[in-house]
């Protein structure tokens, strides 16, 4: 049986897994953005916190994803088996690109524009929200896009700790030594990643100034 036939005959299962996968990714991305963007804004003015935050986020990225899921299982509250543990791991992965791009975007605004803003009597708060943030928005969106593509890929491994999603097919396929079953998970995941990349790329271009 080839992959297409398998997907067609199991289409309701594939669709359900895709929906699960998408929900995992959306929740993780929402949380990661809600942490990453404000944290990126804070570290612009706090060099010591910046070093620590970027270091921690970078270290998270270096931990192999399967190991990170494993590490989280025994932890109280955030750990255990299931979707919530997977979300914690996915957030940790998504954080670095969002945090780094927010920081880079906010700090790469043309200094002469910032000085004009200051000279016009804008407060620091107004400069951040009315000048820096809008001018950094496309760079921040690029970070979110990178994070989304990573998260869609890594989320397939979440099935290993019982979080469901398209990874279920991949793990089952590996166990069954069936390419068709693996592809039933891998193809929709790849399509999701391409779609996310494309759509967020459009958003990014819309936000770009000049």
């Amino acid at each position, binding site marked *: 049986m080839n992959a297409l036939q398998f997907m067609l005959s199991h289409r309701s299962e594939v669709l359900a897994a895709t929906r699960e996968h998408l929900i995992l990714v959306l929740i993780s991305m929402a949380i990661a953005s809600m942490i990453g963007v404000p944290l990126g804004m804070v570290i612009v003015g706090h060099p010591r916190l910046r070093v620590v935050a970027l270091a921690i986020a970078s270290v998270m990225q270096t931990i192999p994803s399967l190991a990170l899921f494993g590490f989280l299982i025994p932890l109280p509250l955030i750990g255990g088996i299931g979707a919530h543990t997977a979300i914690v791991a996915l957030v940790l992965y998504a954080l670095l690109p969002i945090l780094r791009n927010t920081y880079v975007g906010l700090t790469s605004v*043309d200094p*002469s*524009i910032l*000085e*004009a*803003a*200051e*000279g*016009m*009597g*804008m*407060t620091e708060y*107004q400069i951040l929200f009315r*000048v820096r943030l*809008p*001018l950094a928005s496309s760079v921040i969106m690029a970070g979110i896009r990178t994070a989304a593509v990573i998260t869609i890929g890594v989320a397939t491994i979440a099935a290993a700790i019982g979080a469901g999603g398209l990874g279920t097919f991949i793990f089952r396929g590996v166990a069954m030594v069936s390419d068709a079953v693996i592809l039933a998970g891998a193809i929709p995941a790849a399509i999701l990643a391409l779609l996310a990349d494309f759509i967020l790329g459009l958003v990014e271009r819309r936000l770009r*100034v*000049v």
Partner: protein
Amino acid sequence: MRNPIIEFRQVEYQISTISSQPILSVVSLQIHRGETIALLGRSGSGKTTLLKLINGLRRATSGHVLVQGRDVRDWDIIRLRRGVGYVIQETGLFPHLTVRENVCLVPQLENWPSDRISARYVEVLQSVGLSPSLYSQRYPRELSGGQRQRVGVARALAGDPEILLMDEPFGALDPVTRAQLQREFLTLSRDLAKTVVFVTHDVREALLLGSRVILLDSGRMVAEATPQEFVRLTHPIAREFLAAAELATGAPA
């Protein structure tokens, strides 16, 4: 004796106390209401620093800078800056805001009622020779250098400041546009009766627009003269500037 609107008392500015060469050394200067002061000097002469001391973008290392009789240190810096228009080269416009949003920023921050903001927008755009309706929704990138500079002046005037600071306002323009904007600015500044301090390295611009020219060299004020007096100055730096201008144009200014 009327009170100066801007006064420098024994002002010194240096970046660090270790370096021996201050950026500005002992400048004392009084600027009165309605004057148009040209700060003339070469790159690195300290003229831009002198300008930025007025709106607190730079803080004097020693001495006092007084604006409307009050030390800049004692001003609420946001209040001070909202009352001082600031024009820099064309890059200073906010690229993510339309012409109208750029121009109306200070009135909006000051919470003016919206009908007053609209009226002010029309007024200042007309005063710089741009059609208010034609340009309101345009972005800075869609404008020519000269148009951007006009918008920059309109933006600085929008909050109706008593003082206007201009840092090489016409520096980035082609010679024809520059001459046109200079002429217009001359008319405009006479009509507005504001106190203007502008920085330039162009002696012709300083003599054309300034009611008084302050010549700076290596952080020192080396001469202070009306345009009429300036051309007769014997100071070597002043002679250099005059000679360079004559050479460049082939005819005396």
